[in-house]
C-alpha cells in the first residue's frame, strides 16, 4: 500500500504544480506583456512614463502630414477607440501607408505627442494580387453602404 500512496501523492503534487504554473501564465497574459502598447493602453496610463516604449496601431486615414523641406512627418496612430499623434524624423518604410498597421518606438511627451525614434510597418498576413485586393475593398464598401 505504501508505495502506492507515495505514487498518488507524487501525481497529486505534479498536477498541483502544473495547475499553479498554468494559473500564473494566465495571470501574466491578463496583464500586459507586449512588444508594443495600443493607444487605448497609453490613454489609460498603462504605458511607461518618461521612458522609451513602442506603440502600435493603424495610421489614421488623412492624418499624414509632411513638413516641407524636411524628413519630419506627423501622423496619428489609432486603434479606433483612442488615437495618439506621432512625430518622426527619418525615412519611413515602404509599407507605411494610411490605414495600415504601424509600430513606433519613442517617448511620450508632456503634450501628449509621441516622438518616435524608429517607425516600423506592421503588415498583415494577407497576400493577393492588387486586382483581388481592390475587389475585396469594393465589396466591403458596398457592404458598408
Amino acid at each position, binding site marked *: 500500500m505504501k508505495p502506492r500512496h507515495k505514487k498518488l501523492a507524487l501525481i497529486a503534487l505534479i498536477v498541483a504544480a502544473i495547475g499553479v504554473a498554468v494559473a500564473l501564465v494566465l495571470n501574466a497574459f491578463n496583464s500586459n506583456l507586449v512588444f508594443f502598447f495600443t493607444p487605448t493602453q497609453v490613454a489609460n496610463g498603462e504605458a511607461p512614463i518618461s521612458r522609451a516604449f513602442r506603440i502600435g496601431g493603424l495610421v489614421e486615414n488623412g492624418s499624414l502630414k509632411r513638413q516641407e523641406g524636411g524628413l519630419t512627418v506627423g501622423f496619428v496612430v489609432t486603434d479606433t477607440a483612442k488615437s495618439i499623434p506621432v512625430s518622426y524624423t527619418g525615412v519611413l*518604410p515602404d509599407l507605411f501607408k494610411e490605414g495600415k498597421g504601424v509600430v513606433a518606438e519613442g517617448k511620450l511627451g508632456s503634450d501628449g505627442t509621441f516622438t518616435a525614434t524608429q517607425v*516600423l*510597418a506592421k503588415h498583415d498576413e494577407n*497576400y493577393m*494580387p492588387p486586382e483581388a*485586393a481592390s475587389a475585396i475593398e469594393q465589396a466591403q464598401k458596398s457592404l458598408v453602404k
Partner: protein
Amino acid sequence: MNLYRYASPSTFYPLAGRLAPWFFALAFILAVIGLYISFFVAPTDFQQGEGYRIIFIHVPAAWMSMFIYIVMAFWSAIGLAWNTRLSFIMARALAPTGAMFTFIALWTGAFWGKPMWGAWWVWDARLTSELILFFLYVGVMALQAAIDDPRRSDRAGALLNLVGVINVPIIYFSVKWWNTLHQGSSVSLTRAPSMAHIMLWGMLIMALAAWMYAIAVAFVRARSMLLERERQASWVRELPEGKA
C-alpha cells in the same frame, strides 16, 4: 519483429541508398516547379509588390526549422525509450539540415523585414524564439561533437533535444500570444488561408521540395554516419563501397 528488421542498420543502409536519389530528384523537380510559380506565375502582391516573393523560401524554411526539430525530438525520444541505434543516427543526421533551415529563415526574414518593416531585426517574440532555436541546434551539435563515446553522445544529445522541444510551440504561437511585429500565420488548419491560391500553391510546393531535400540529405548523412560507426561490423565490410 518486422519493424526491427527495418530498424537494423544493415537493412536501412542499402534502402536509404536506393531512396535518396529519388528524393533528390523529387526535390529538384518540385523546386523548379515551385520557383517557376514563384517568379513567373504568382502575381504581384497588393501591399508589398515584388518584395513579397521572399515568402516562397522564408516560410518553407521557417516551417522546416521547427518541423525538423520536432522530428529530431521524436527520434530522440524513440531512441531513449527503446535504445534503437538507428533512431539516434536519424536524429543526428537531421540536426545540421535543421540548423541550416533555421539560418535561412533568419536570413531571409532579415532581408524581408528591412524593406517592409524598416528594420533588419527586431527583438519581438517570434524572432527571438527562432534565434533561440538556432542556438539550440548549434548547442546539440556542439555537445555531440564534444563527446567521444558514441553511445553517450547519442543519448546526451537526444536528451537535450527533448528539453529544447519546448521552444517550438513558443515560436509557433508567439504571434498569437504576444503583440509582435511579425504578422500572423497565413496558413492555418482552422480557417481558410489568407493568401491568393496561386501564391499559396507556390509556397506549398516549395515547402514540399524542402521536405524532399531534407529527407534526401538526412538519408545520405545517416549512411555516412553508419559507415563510420559500424566499420567493424561484418555487413559494412562486405559492402562493395569498402572494396579497394
